[in-house]
């Protein structure tokens, strides 16, 4: 999931996710890691990404960082699920600017460009 997300956040403009098949994996919950990642991610891109994979529980606006240490784990649990447990198995990442699709097969996004795009 993060790869799409990191990809998403990282290509200058977030890539849209076109979900074919999404799988869920169970991953150990690690609050420290999530806090660390929270500072790095672009919230809107994550919300969008998670929603296109069928998970709409994240708040629209980036919550205040204080929620991380509030002792209430509800938010962290949601972040955990969206960030680590959702995997795009088949589908595509779509560039919102050009409409160019990068296919995802067996969980591996193919970001190769064609000759004429380099």
């Amino acid at each position, binding site marked *: *999931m*993060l*790869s799409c997300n*990191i*990809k998403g*956040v*990282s*290509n*200058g403009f977030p890539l849209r996710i076109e979900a074919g098949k999404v799988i869920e*994996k169970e*991953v150990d919950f*690690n609050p*420290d*890691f999530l806090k*660390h*990642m929270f500072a*790095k991610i672009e919230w809107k891109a994550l919300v969008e990404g998670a929603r296109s994979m069928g998970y709409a529980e994240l708040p629209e606006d980036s919550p205040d960082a204080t929620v991380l240490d509030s002792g209430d784990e509800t938010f962290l649990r949601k972040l955990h699920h969206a960030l*680590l447990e959702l995997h795009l198995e088949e589908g595509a990442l779509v560039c919102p600017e050009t409409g160019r699709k990068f296919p995802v097969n*067996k*969980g*591996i*996004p*193919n*970001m*190769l*460009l064609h000759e004429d795009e*380099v």
Partner: protein
Amino acid sequence: MKLKQLEGLLGDLQQFSNPKVELEQYPTGPHIASRMLFTAENSYGDISDKVVADFGCGCGTLSAAAALLDASYVMGFDIDPQSLETATLNAEELEVEIDFVQCDITNLELKGQIVDTAVMNPPFGTRKKGADMEFLSAAMKVASQAVYSLHKTSTREHIKRAALRDFNAKSAEVLCELQYDLPKLYKFHKRKEVDIAVDLWRFEPRQN
């Protein structure tokens, strides 16, 4: 995890079944891979609980080592789909989570320092001149904390100069010199194995 144990686990991984010469596909052996990641973890604390990227991950030896040493999230990047398939199988076999992305490192557009640590065994640039430098340049842009990489010892001065001057490195240090045996994968190698001297580097990127 002990070094021996790590080396043992990595020794069981599948390697390139059909190495592609032009991509410089030779496996990072378990000996080198285990030492590389072990040092990163035990001397510098750059692996456990960190986000780690492996550039030119091939069959995923370095990615797997990072995951085994408790990196919190590992990503492997390679241009070659066959290798990534093998890497995926290797990760499943070890029961570790790694996300693989097929891409060309030389025109990868990543936004800023999105990982903590990058580890890589780039092409040495023997087939495509400058490939090693392109990998280093890309890695220095995505890692915020450290980049570990292998380069031919014969290029040491050049690497150091380029890293400090062109790639935004705060420090560039050779941690050790290693013997890298290139198995006779390719016809143009005359002897059975060619040992070449490589340096294990640690670079620290400047904060952007």
